[in-house]
């Protein structure tokens, strides 16, 4: 049965370019664009929750909780079947952006809460407008401490991108599965995919760990 070797270097070299292509054009693309959406939308959610009247802020809180506590796979499928005409990749980018925005808004919220009350009072004393209070005083101070936590969410989003398989997007794991199915050998493609993830996420998480230490010292 095992006439072929356990590990076939020819197959490995053949599949590697396919994997790297899917990795760059889909996995990294989704990570970058969705991180941007999540970072911006998360901040908007955090500010809206703090400065809206109570019923609205409670509603935002409830909706973000439901999004945060339910599987992204189910959310992807939901959007995929509702918008059947849309490009699955676009749906993926938007859902990943929204899902992670609810996580990031919690990070921002903690950052905003950590800004000392005196800063709010000083802004009132200087009769700054709401807009300037947020834009020039609160947000810049709140953001600094949040960078490492946001970075960790970007890494975890990166490792979640294979969930896009559920809506037929050919990211790197699906590319590996397709190759494996066509060539009756999964070991090279799936092992290489794991290595690609490991080699890109581990150094990044080390970097973020260092950043965290540095920010902790200077504060």
């Amino acid at each position: 049965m095992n006439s072929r070797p356990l590990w076939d270097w020819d197959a490995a070299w053949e599949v590697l370019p396919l994997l790297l292509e899917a990795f760059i054009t889909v996995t990294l693309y989704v990570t970058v664009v969705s991180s941007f959406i999540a970072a911006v939308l998360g901040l908007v959610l955090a500010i809206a929750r703090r400065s809206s009247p109570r019923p609205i802020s409670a509603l935002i809180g409830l909706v973000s909780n439901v999004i945060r506590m339910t599987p992204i796979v189910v959310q992807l499928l939901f959007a995929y079947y509702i918008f059947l005409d849309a490009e699955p990749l676009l749906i993926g980018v938007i859902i990943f952006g929204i899902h992670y925005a609810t996580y990031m808004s919690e990070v921002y919220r903690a950052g905003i809460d950590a800004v000392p009350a005196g800063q709010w009072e000083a802004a009132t004393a200087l009769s700054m407008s709401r807009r300037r209070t947020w834009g020039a005083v609160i947000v810049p101070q709140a953001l600094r401490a949040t960078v490492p936590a946001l970075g960790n969410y970007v890494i975890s989003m990166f490792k979640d991108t294979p969930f896009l398989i559920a809506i037929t997007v050919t990211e790197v794991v699906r590319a590996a599965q397709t190759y494996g199915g066509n060539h009756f050998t999964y070991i090279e493609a799936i092992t290489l995919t794991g290595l690609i993830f490991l080699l890109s996420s581990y150094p990044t998480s080390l970097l973020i760990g260092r950043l965290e230490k540095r920010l902790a010292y200077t504060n």
Partner: protein
Amino acid sequence: MSEHLIKLRDAWPQILDGIGITLVLTVGGAALALVVAIALGLLARFDNILLRGTARVFIEFFRGTSLVVQLFWLYFVLPRFGVELSAIAVGIFALGLNYGAYGAEVVRGSLNSVPAGQWEATTALSLSRTQRMWRVIFPQAWALMIPSLTNLLIQLLKGTAIVSIIAMADLTFMIDKLRQDTDTFFAYTVGLLLYFALASLLTLGMNALEIRAKHKLGRGDSLRSALSFSSSASRAGKGVA
């Protein structure tokens, strides 16, 4: 809408089966993850470079390679080595190893946060290594680690949804069947609410565990008195009087 509700009622036994599979994956995965987390978390604190190094390699490997890759590796590649696991076993192994590696960091961090005086006290009382860990240090670290473990448990529950792609009839799978009988909006709203309810129940259970762990350390109410609102209200009343 009402005919959708009738369809939902007809499909309910199947949906319950799906919830059952999701819970088996969640509980099985969490049990394995807890064992892996405690084992690796303890190993990662050894001075011996070989033990510590092994733990670090395991932790970084399973954290760094993505859950879905591990799932596929166990499902498609392991049979090449003559190991054929059922789909549910593959799901439990992948979830347990992946979240166990994340949990190991939580365990290690919590053990490190137990105040140094507690460690010194165990030396002063000349407790053995095992007694020191299981009777003094771990119970305190356990209370510290529960909130982070709760987050991981919810992540694990959400992670079970991807297991339906390796042909498992879990809740996500049953929701997709309901979609074919009703419509997308109805079926997936029901699905999201069911997952939300499961996650909320798990969170409540973990909060109860945290109250119990803290009470055992002499902090806060016992679980029983925290649960009975009447008794705490009467106590508050006495306080005012």
